[in-house]
């Protein structure tokens, strides 16, 4: 593990990659603070601009946005009583109360300290878990990948809110969109409607920017959530010794919960925060104060959601199964850069894998520096009206989509998907399973057919291979569990990510 981390430090500490981490964290903090602009939309928007940079730099920056947003979100939660991100909903409860009592600075500092320590522990957990997974890498052939994808797609159902039929429907829409273009195995053109622009299939960027970025803009503009609220000023950042004593156990509990929840496919950051808050309410010595400005109510959930943000990379990087829509986008980014996600990533691209993990440590440190002294500056951002913000975002999106293939056709397609994304929201259809279907569907088919070519048409290959059989059994288990009533409750919470 140490040798691996050294590879990572080597890769992540290059000036260029440190700068990408800084850019990602800064941008993440920014969008985290601004309500109505989430990491999902931002990562979609930035994807096309990562074409020109190397895959490691790209992933470092995108990851920085992801966990940076979790930091920034809590600042808004504490000062404005609005969740900058869904993951900081829980922080509002005690964080805003602390702010109203003149302890806004302390609350922000607590959130940063909790996030930092949890982020560091989370990174170490990722490093420790990843190595054993790497040893099975070479045993992953087409049959194993197929079964893994089955688990991923079924897991995607658990990601979605609302009805299971809707989620399955969205996955199928994604799979169909993923089929557009020339079939790898037979050379058949599918759903191209005589349009040569579609021969190579749909660009991931076009779909992601359309559904998430455009969709979110339309949604925000129509919902009227563009007014900003009063901001409580934050001064006096330093927590007292007593504050430190009170937050430490909460941070430790939150980190443990977050690390565990993050690994579960389908669970997200807000689940981790909720669990942690619930636990604090049960076990904390100051539980009576919870809800009226208890520091535990900030420290625990903030630690939990940051630890989860780190450990969510375990299933994404090592198995190729994203735990949340944001992770699905990270997966898409890897595929875009010609990196096949899965256990082989660690052996085929060790500097990428470990570099990304180490960059999270560096990123967490940067976030503390960015968040504490600069808090006043960040808060001023909340005064920019949305009507000034969205045209810039829109233009930026169009540039990005065009840059991917130098094709105006793609911009039109993205606009179409934007409309579709808005409709999905109105119809209460979560688009996350669709993205998963789009990424995983073609891989599922490819591996299914490759496994059968290599086994000369023998279907038993999927259950004969032990790893493959285990995954298929797991898939059945998830199906059964999510059909139970308790599973349904859990799913509606996850959908908030």
């Amino acid at each position, binding site marked *: 593990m140490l040798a691996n981390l050294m590879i990572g430090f080597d890769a992540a500490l290059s000036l260029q990659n440190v700068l990408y981490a800084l850019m990602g964290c800064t941008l993440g903090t920014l969008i985290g603070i601004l309500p109505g602009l989430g990491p999902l939309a931002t990562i979609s928007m930035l994807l096309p601009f990562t074409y020109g940079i190397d895959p490691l730099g790209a992933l470092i920056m995108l990851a920085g946005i992801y966990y940076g947003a979790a930091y920034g979100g809590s600042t808004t939660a504490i000062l404005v009583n609005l969740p900058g991100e869904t993951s900081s909903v829980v922080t509002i409860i005690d964080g805003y109360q602390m702010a109203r009592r003149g302890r806004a600075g302390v609350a922000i500092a607590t959130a940063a300290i909790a996030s930092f320590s949890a982020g560091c522990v989370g990174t170490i957990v990722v490093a420790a878990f990843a190595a054993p997974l790497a040893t099975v890498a070479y045993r992953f052939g087409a049959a194993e990948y197929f079964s893994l994808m089955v688990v991923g797609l079924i897991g995607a159902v658990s990601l979605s809110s609302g009805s299971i039929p809707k989620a399955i429907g969205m996955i199928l829409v994604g799979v169909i969109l993923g089929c557009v273009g020339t079939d790898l195995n037979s*050379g058949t053109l599918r759903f191209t409607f005589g349009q040569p622009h579609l021969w190579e299939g749909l660009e991931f960027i076009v779909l992601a920017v359309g559904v998430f970025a455009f969709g979110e803009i339309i949604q925000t503009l129509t919902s009227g959530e563009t007014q900003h609220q009063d901001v409580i000023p934050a001064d006096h950042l330093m927590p007292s010794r007593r504050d430190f004593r009170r937050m430490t156990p909460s941070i430790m509990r939150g980190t443990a919960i977050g690390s565990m929840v993050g690994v579960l496919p389908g669970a997200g950051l807000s689940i981790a925060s909720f669990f942690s808050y619930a636990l604090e309410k049960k076990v904390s010595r100051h539980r009576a104060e919870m809800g009226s400005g208890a520091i535990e109510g900030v420290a625990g959930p903030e630690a939990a959601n940051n630890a989860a943000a780190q450990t969510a990379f375990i299933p994404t990087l090592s198995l190729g199964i994203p735990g949340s829509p944001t992770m699905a986008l990270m997966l898409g980014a890897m595929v875009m850069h010609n990196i096949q996600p899965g256990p082989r990533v660690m052996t085929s691209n060790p500097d990428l894998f470990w570099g990304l993990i180490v960059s999270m440590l560096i990123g967490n440190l940067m976030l503390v520096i960015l968040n504490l002294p600069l808090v006043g500056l960040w808060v001023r951002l909340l005064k920019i009206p949305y009507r000034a913000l969205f045209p810039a975002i829109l233009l930026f999106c169009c540039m990005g989509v065009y840059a991917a293939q130098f094709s105006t056709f793609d911009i039109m397609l993205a606009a179409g998907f934007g409309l579709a994304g808005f409709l999905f929201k109105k119809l209460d259809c979560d688009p996350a399973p669709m993205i998963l279907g789009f990424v995983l569907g073609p891989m599922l088919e490819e591996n299914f057919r490759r496994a059968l070519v290599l086994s000369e048409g023998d279907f038993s290959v999927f259950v004969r291979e032990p790893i493959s059989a285990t995954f298929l059994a797991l898939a059945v288990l998830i199906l059964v569990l999510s059909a139970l009533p308790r599973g349904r409750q859990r799913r509606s919470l996850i959908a908030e990510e």
Partner: protein
Amino acid sequence: MTLMKTLLAAALAATLPLGAVAQDFPDDTVTVVIPFTPGGSNDTIGRYLAENLAKHWDSTVVVENKPGAGSAIGSAYVANAEPNGYTLLFVSATFTTNAATQPNLPFDPVEDLQPIGMGAVGQFVAVAGNHVEAENLADLIETAKSRKVFYGTTGVGSSTHFAGALLADVAGIEMEPVHYPGGTDALLDIAGGRLDMYVGSVPQVLSSVQAGTVKPLAVTSETRSKALPDVPTVVEEGLEEAVFDIWWGVFTASGTPPEVVEKINAGINAVMTTPEAEAFLAKQGAMPRAMSVEAFTDHVHAEIAKWRKLATQHDIRVK
């Protein structure tokens, strides 16, 4: 057919005041269309050529990426451009394999585009997994007679598919193609013992050969590879017909005055054969190979005919 076309072009050319046109060429901006996205060997080599043609002619040469439909969109754009030599296509050997597999191309690869010159060539090498009982091509042929051999490709109709199919065809053996999204995936499956062999570009395969996860059988070229000096060629192994080199070349719209075509050809040959160009190409795993307009035209058209035949025999096609 080729002769007819040349005659036709010459006849057309005779009706125009051409001498002056060729002498002044280029007196305007020349556009080099690259039918792929930026990055990758085609783009890198194409940009190098454009940059050096500009110096050579003391003129402006711009690069325009027109990706899509596996090079068909950029190729069709050049095929429909004004036939004056100011719009050039820089494309790889996928031009001839696509011509054989895609029946619905928005242009005719033989009739609509005039081959001008060869920019560079690259070598392929056949590799097998350590689990395959073969140290050379002869062993592989023996193995293939006793059991089914699977070879990896990077998709139906890709260069690697044709290279593998050609080898099987010439050696008179049956091999089953297994399609992968990229060469790295095929190489990993070979290392894992699930796939038997792969014929791919030397730069792509090199690190796996050096790591010992695959063993090289033969270079599918007339000369040995500088990167793999101990590996024999298919010619040495007695399979001259299995030679498969990838190339990058320049085309323009048919009907372009022959003098202009000759002038561009001379320019390409001048800038791509310098020691500096050789060093640059070596980094891309390629090397210079100057060709006359006639030689390159014959090469391209012969390849298209050869791939069309092989595609029919092995049912390699886009439907």
